[in-house]
């Protein structure tokens, strides 16, 4: 609680309070610490104010039981107490007790008393000094307490017992704070152990079983309680959260805070508690986070265990092996030896083979020597030019769209001329007119086809037909023969007569 309110302190106050720790920075901080210890010892027996002589006596007592307690005369002691007063660790008062005689009155000295904050500063320092990082744990027992408290809280709020509400709520608050502190401490300590095992694996190995059991048990307990706790939190809220907090604030006895402040304080605490067990907007609960952290810590512990046992089994640690090897390899006389050593130590190498095989190894006797056996066929180009023979770079594609278009145009024109000629031949026939170039070409092509398809039957020529596109040509045997006139001259067809007709689609065959 005190820690939380520290967030609101301004810088000036903070530096004031830091001053309380000045004594730890002084040259002989141990002496100051012993003085404060003596002061604390007197305070324990309700001697709140103490003079230098009392302190000197207490120090002597302490020196009997402990080593390193400084022996100080009263003047020295008084000087140091004044320093502490300057740091505001102690208050200085004039001794108010009755002196009784003049001599004593003249010798009357100041007495000292812990200031409230000074006492806390001293306790904090002692806390750090006396901290034993080994005594951390993740208490799984806390969880059932929390559950019980939550149920009692719901009950108290339902029945309107304000004092019960307050009591349960403050207890919950303490328990939760304790749980948070424990888990944080536990994970910090565990991290430290994992980090420093190289130095002392024994500590770790001694506790490894207990540690693993502890962590897995905690996780199991958390798993078991998690849904119940969440339900319990919701149940409490169902009994009326505003009423609950108001009741707690009303019963709260902190008199230097007004009611609104107390209400705010309780609201904040409740939301912290709620954050532990219930999810809000998909964010994981703190309990789930703790669960995850514990799980990853468990795997870390197991990994560490494996590493340690490996080292145990080999008698040597991998790391020290590698360091040993580094020394060895660096001292080898040459690179070849170094690589041979590294290869053997890492147990790494690659296979190596000669390229190119005989196509027909069966032809060569296994008893022939390499001196006499024929050589393998190697690409000679590779060695002559230094470049492996390849098919070469693909040639760029040459495009000439205009020329292609012209060619296409010419082809199309030729074909249409042919078609027209054929149509003309079919209509007008080949005789009784002079055929031009195109007509002649088409006619000759038709005759060629007709002649190719001609069959000789019983020594007699039968008629033959040929077609091209739409024109049918028939060569009919004729005693007189026939003649076709063309621009180039006369085409004699002895023993044949030409018959031309447009071909009936599908029929003529």
């Amino acid at each position, binding site marked *: 609680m005190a820690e939380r309110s520290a967030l609101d302190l301004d810088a000036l106050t903070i530096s004031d309070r830091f001053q309380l720790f000045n004594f730890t920075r002084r040259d002989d901080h141990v002496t100051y610490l012993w003085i404060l210890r003596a002061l604390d010892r007197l305070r324990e027996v309700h001697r709140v104010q103490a003079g230098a002589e009392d302190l000197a006596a207490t120090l002597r007592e302490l020196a009997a039981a402990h080593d390193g307690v400084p022996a100080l005369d009263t003047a020295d002691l008084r000087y140091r107490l004044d320093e502490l007063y300057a740091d505001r660790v102690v208050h200085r008062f004039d001794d108010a007790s009755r002196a009784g005689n003049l001599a004593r009155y003249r010798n009357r000295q100041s007495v000292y008393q812990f200031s409230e904050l000074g006492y806390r500063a001293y306790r904090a320092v002692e806390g750090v000094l006396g901290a034993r990082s080994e005594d951390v744990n993740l208490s799984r027992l806390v969880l059932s307490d929390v559950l019980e408290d939550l149920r009692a809280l719901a009950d108290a709020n339902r029945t309107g017992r304000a004092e019960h509400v307050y009591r349960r709520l403050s207890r919950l608050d303490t328990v939760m704070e304790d749980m948070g502190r424990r888990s944080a401490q536990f994970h910090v300590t565990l991290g430290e152990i994992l980090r420093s095992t*190289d130095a002392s694996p024994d500590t770790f190995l001694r506790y490894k079983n207990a540690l693993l059991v502890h962590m897995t048990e905690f996780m199991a307990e958390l798993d078991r309680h998690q849904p119940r706790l969440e339900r319990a939190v919701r149940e409490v809220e169902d009994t009326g959260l505003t009423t609950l907090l108001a009741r707690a604030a009303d019963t709260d006895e902190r008199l230097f805070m007004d009611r609104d402040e107390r209400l705010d304080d309780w609201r904040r605490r409740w939301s912290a508690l709620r954050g532990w067990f219930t999810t809000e907007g998909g964010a994981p609960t703190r309990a789930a986070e703790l669960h995850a952290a514990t799980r990853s810590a468990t795997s870390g512990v197991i*990994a560490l265990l494996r590493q340690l046992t490996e080292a145990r089994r080999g008698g040597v640690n*991998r790391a020290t092996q590698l360091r040993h090897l*580094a020394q060895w*390899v660096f001292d*080898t006389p040459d690179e070849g030896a170094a690589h041979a050593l590294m290869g053997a130590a890492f147990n790494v190498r690659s296979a190596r083979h000669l390229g190119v095989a005989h196509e027909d190894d069966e032809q060569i006797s296994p008893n*022939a020597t390499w001196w006499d056996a024929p050589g393998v066929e190697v690409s000679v180009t590779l*060695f002559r030019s230094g470049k492996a023979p390849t098919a070469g770079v693909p040639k760029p594609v040459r495009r000439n769209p205009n020329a292609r278009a012209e060619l296409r145009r010419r082809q199309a024109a030729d074909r249409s001329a042919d078609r027209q000629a054929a149509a003309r031949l079919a209509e007008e026939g080949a005789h009784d007119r002079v055929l031009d170039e195109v007509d002649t070409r088409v006619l000759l092509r038709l005759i060629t086809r007709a002649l190719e398809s001609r069959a000789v039957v019983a020594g007699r020529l039968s008629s033959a037909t040929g077609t091209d596109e739409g024109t049918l040509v028939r060569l009919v045997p004729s005693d007189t023969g026939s003649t076709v006139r063309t621009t180039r001259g006369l085409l004699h067809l002895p023993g044949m007569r030409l018959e031309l007709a447009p071909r009936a689609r599908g029929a003529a065959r």
Partner: protein
Amino acid sequence: MSRRRRPAQRIDPADLGAYQQAMRRVLTCDIITRDRPRPGVLANVLRWADELSEDLRELFGHTLIATTEHVRLVRAPDTLDPTQRQVFARAGRPFDRRRLAYLCLLLASFQRSQVEVSLADLIRHFTPSANAVGGLGYDPTDGTHKAALVDVCSWLVDHGALHVSDGSLEAWAGGHGQADALFDIDHEVCEVLFRPVRPVQHVTGVTGLLVHHPDEPTREQTARRARRLLVEHPVVHYADVTPDVADALRAPGVAEEVARLTGLTVERRAEGVLLADPGGLFTDRPFPGRGSAVNRTAGLLLAKIADRMETARAALTHLPLPAAPDAHAELAARIDSALPREGVVGALAWTPPATAAAAPEPATAPLIEQGRLEAMVEDLFAEFGAASFTAAWQRDPRGLLDAALELLTDLSLLRPVPGGVLVLPAALRYRNIQGALPQRPDTGMLPLGLEPEGT
């Protein structure tokens, strides 16, 4: 002994090609991931994962790790190989010792508990361990150190051990202000990348990282060894292996099994046996390859050598071939000279049993002297024109010669000796490259193999 099944027995003949391709991938690629060597390969290999791992185990004694994310072949290594430099290399350039050491240290600095790490943090972890190695160190102001680190990180990224999720290595190397790179570590890949046969600290010598061969091997063990030699080396000369392995190789069966498994062609000759790769992809050093200057020069050199052997065979000096086991022992001794003794866990250390290596009878091979090799390259430059050997080499014929000789040595076609190289028999299978050499003017005289004085 039960009858052993045939390799790739359950594979449908129609699928044999795909299976052989998967087998070749597994044997050439150190780790196959979703993106390495290229997307899609992983799926093709995983399709055959069961058959592959069965065949590899039975025929070679290898273990195949195949998960849905990666495939890695864990071999039973027989020999040290100083020529496998492309495994740890970037863009064809093999790593130097600094880079190799950085690689080990970077892998060592990945902590299992972290998944994400920025380069700056990585260097913060890495620097102290680098500085702990005498002479190595890491100096952020030294450009060569940074470049080495970039190469190593890129190698890890290539192999899928790191994924860059933000920023870039190049920006960091350029040193522009606060440039950094954020990586995700794939611990599974890191795990399978480094798979020594024994813990490195448990060996007292590098031979401890190889598999140990019993003194009285069974026939099957010998056959496995023969298969492993065949599948990984360009040529296996009978003279270089122990007599029992040579016998296994001479008998038909072993080579044919491996050929069926990988799709290669068996070429058996009097001196040894090789599996020829018609596709030219089942190798880390392709030859004849496809037209790099080094490849071409190597081929032309072979042609010149073949030419010389045919025209002047009588004039060649023959020297005894240094036996391979000797070279191996010498290499192991060199490596062991650097072993950091204080790092060895003495109580658990494993010392390989001393085996008396059966000394095979020394064969002889013709020697080509260094001076003549240089003359050959100069001839080639004169005949083809320096410019045809690419801009990178045209002013450096000696460098080109060295690179070509290294390639041919790696391919077991030549073996360097002081003063020149010995020609191994298989080199002559490329004699036909002579056709690429320019024709000599025909003088009408038969070559006598006599050299004029003073050449």
